[in-house]
């Protein structure tokens, strides 16, 4: 086992998939000779050659559209969009074709492709480089939207995404690409795109988070444990389809829930999670469900970026308020 950053873990997963399956190809802006804007594909061009790892024009519609065609024809494309903020140019291909092909062809064609894209704030970037709009993809039937929370989950989930018979949007929280290292096993590890994972056990409140917010939420939970508040922390991993059974089971046990995400608050992912809980855990709820989220403004430039993001204090405050609510 070796300690790896998340970007190294992603590179490992790509390397493993390409070694194992000749149909896996990698395309995107600068992913070939240059190794990708965040170096995720570094070395793959030299090792697997220009027919399997190649640069694309600066045109997201082409990247996604060409991938759809290759996937229908039998390849397993893993395309990279440089930032999720530019993915909308390829959204037409993703929504109108990738997500619909199995349904449209009544199961005759499937689209086994992965669209990787860095998303989220926290790296002091420019406009269009910090948004967290996972709901746009999660809202589309036929797409699986996956968000890893660290090196080990990134490697295992990307391996599973590449093996998936249907299109997967793989959102990579760029602020944790290199912010910490984690043990990632040398032997292949394939995750599960259908289940959330409990990363801390507790009886007092259920916390739901994903991506870069998992670590912040865990830190808040650690802090509150000193005051006797035991949090059940769930890393969602796959935003869509939502693993509601894990969340519902936990909420039925704790009766209190707080959801943390960096996406905008209104019509954000927490809204859907709360709806599921109201449908399935209503009679066990002891307090209103709390949301700790980004605000309903475009993500600010770097001077105010951290003020936009949920931080430990905001998370802890919401947890306390929810736990202390009399019922």
């Amino acid at each position, binding site marked *: 086992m070796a300690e790896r950053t998340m970007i190294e873990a992603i590179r490992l997963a790509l390397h493993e998939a390409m070694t194992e399956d000749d149909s896996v190809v990698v395309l995107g802006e600068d992913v070939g000779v240059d190794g990708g804007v965040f170096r995720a594909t570094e070395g793959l061009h030299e090792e697997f050659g220009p027919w399997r790892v190649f640069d694309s024009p600066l045109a997201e519609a082409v990247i996604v559209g060409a991938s759809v065609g290759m996937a229908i024809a039998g390849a397993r494309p893993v395309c990279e969009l440089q930032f999720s903020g530019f993915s909308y140019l390829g959204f037409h291909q993703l929504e109108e074709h990738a997500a619909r092909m199995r349904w449209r062809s009544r199961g005759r064609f499937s689209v086994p492709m992965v669209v990787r894209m860095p998303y989220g704030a926290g790296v002091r970037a420019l406009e269009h480089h910090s948004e967290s709009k996972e709901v746009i993809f999660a809202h589309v039937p036929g797409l699986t939207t996956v968000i890893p929370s660290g090196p080990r989950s990134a490697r295992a989930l990307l391996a599973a995404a590449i093996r998936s018979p249907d299109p997967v949007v793989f959102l990579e929280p760029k602020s944790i690409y290199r912010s910490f290292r984690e043990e990632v096993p040398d032997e292949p590890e394939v995750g599960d795109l259908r289940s959330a994972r409990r990363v801390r056990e507790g009886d*007092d409140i259920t916390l739901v988070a994903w991506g870069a917010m998992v670590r912040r939420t865990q830190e808040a939970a650690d802090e509150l444990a000193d005051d006797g508040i035991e949090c059940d922390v769930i890393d969602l991993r796959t935003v869509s389809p939502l693993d509601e059974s894990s969340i519902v089971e936990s909420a039925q046990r704790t009766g209190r829930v707080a959801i943390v995400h960096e996406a905008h608050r209104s019509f954000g992912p927490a809204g859907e999670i709360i709806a599921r809980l109201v449908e399935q855990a209503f009679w*066990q*709820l*002891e307090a209103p469900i709390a949301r700790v989220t980004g605000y309903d403004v475009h993500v600010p430039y770097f001077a105010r970026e951290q003020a936009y993001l949920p931080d430990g204090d905001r998370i802890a405050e919401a947890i306390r308020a929810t736990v202390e*609510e*009399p019922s």
Partner: protein
Amino acid sequence: MSRTFSLQDPGEGIHEAEVAEVLVAEGDSVEEDDSVMVVTTDKADSELPSPFAGTVETVHVSVGDIVEVGDPLVTFDGDEDGEEPAERDEEDEGESDEGEEDQETDGEEEEDPEDEADRRSTSGEPSAAPVPASPSTRRLARELDIDISAVDGSGPGGRVLADDVRKAAEGGRPDAEGAEKKDEKRKKKKEKKEKKEKRAKEAEEPEEEQPQEQPTEPRRREEPGGAQPLRGWRRATARRVAESWQTIPHVTHMDRADITGLETFRAERAPDLTMTAFVVKAAIGALSEHPRFNATFRDDELEVRPDCHVGVAVDTERGLVVPVLADADRRSLREIGDELEQLGERARSGSLERDDVSGGTFTVTNVGPLGGTAFTPIIVPPQVAILGLARAAPTPVVTDDGEIVVRTMLPICLAFDHRINDGADAARFVSTIVALLEDPDELLMRS
């Protein structure tokens, strides 16, 4: 919508207050920030400004009531659709008979808000929106076959809590588990934590209570006037001294100071300064040499204080109050005297605020003007000592030469927390005070 103004948490661990004065009546129109009520906490009176503007619909309290944080005080401007704890309180008055309520709900499988509303309107009661309660509490009520709309809510805004439902169900089916289990678990955990904190607070207090003597009814010559609950300052004092006496192992060290010279000095130079001012000055001088008496002790932690704020007990018509002379160690004798006079006047006129009566690090209490040869004062927690003065009087004293002379002797009684200081420490501390009082020149040299 009706809006209810409830007692807010004033902080510092205070969770209840006594209503001293109600400044509004039902039907009054009130501007935001108008004072609606005066409440007493810790012997300081605070005016409560209204957070809303509007017409007073209901005043929920009257003078003398003890209100807890979250209790409704005043409700403003009601619409009929607003479900307010106030309305329910009134409805529930006089029909607390649970049997009656049970009968009313007999046969109802589930509570249905519409049926509920119908039932109420046909019986002439105001129709009501659902009572505030969490879903889990509603489920508990259903499991226990309790009509939640008939339960008096003790939570914020009149919210019905799981405990309220259980209380309402008492005598009903004790075997309804389910939701109860978890709540009990949480409660137990909380109790465990509280117990732990309590244990930390009270050093090794035995779990068992002292066997109580059988209370005997006092004889009465005439018809009794009726027992009255303690109210106001008396109640605050009662609780505070009881807490102190029960938790602090008090020892009182007694000594006398020869203040013949000091009295001569005072008569000549500062007839307007009280003996208390001189003793406060001497105590501050001695505290700087014996800092472990200028300290606070809570949660098993002793904090020897670098600053010095001296409480001085004042006897007033309403009872005992202890205003605090802040930063006493930075004041001259003259300033101490002036400040004490002002604090005394404000204490007697009832205009002290909570800041004026909190934060002391040491206390002086002088019963001398009223008499007494010695007494055992009670420490003001979390302080660790209190200095009591009895009456200074001409006294026969045997000098070092074996002669008997008449001197003015001031009895000094230092009560101290034996957890923090020992008898020898107290003796040394008091000796320093005595030495300073017996040498006015030295006393005045002290900063």
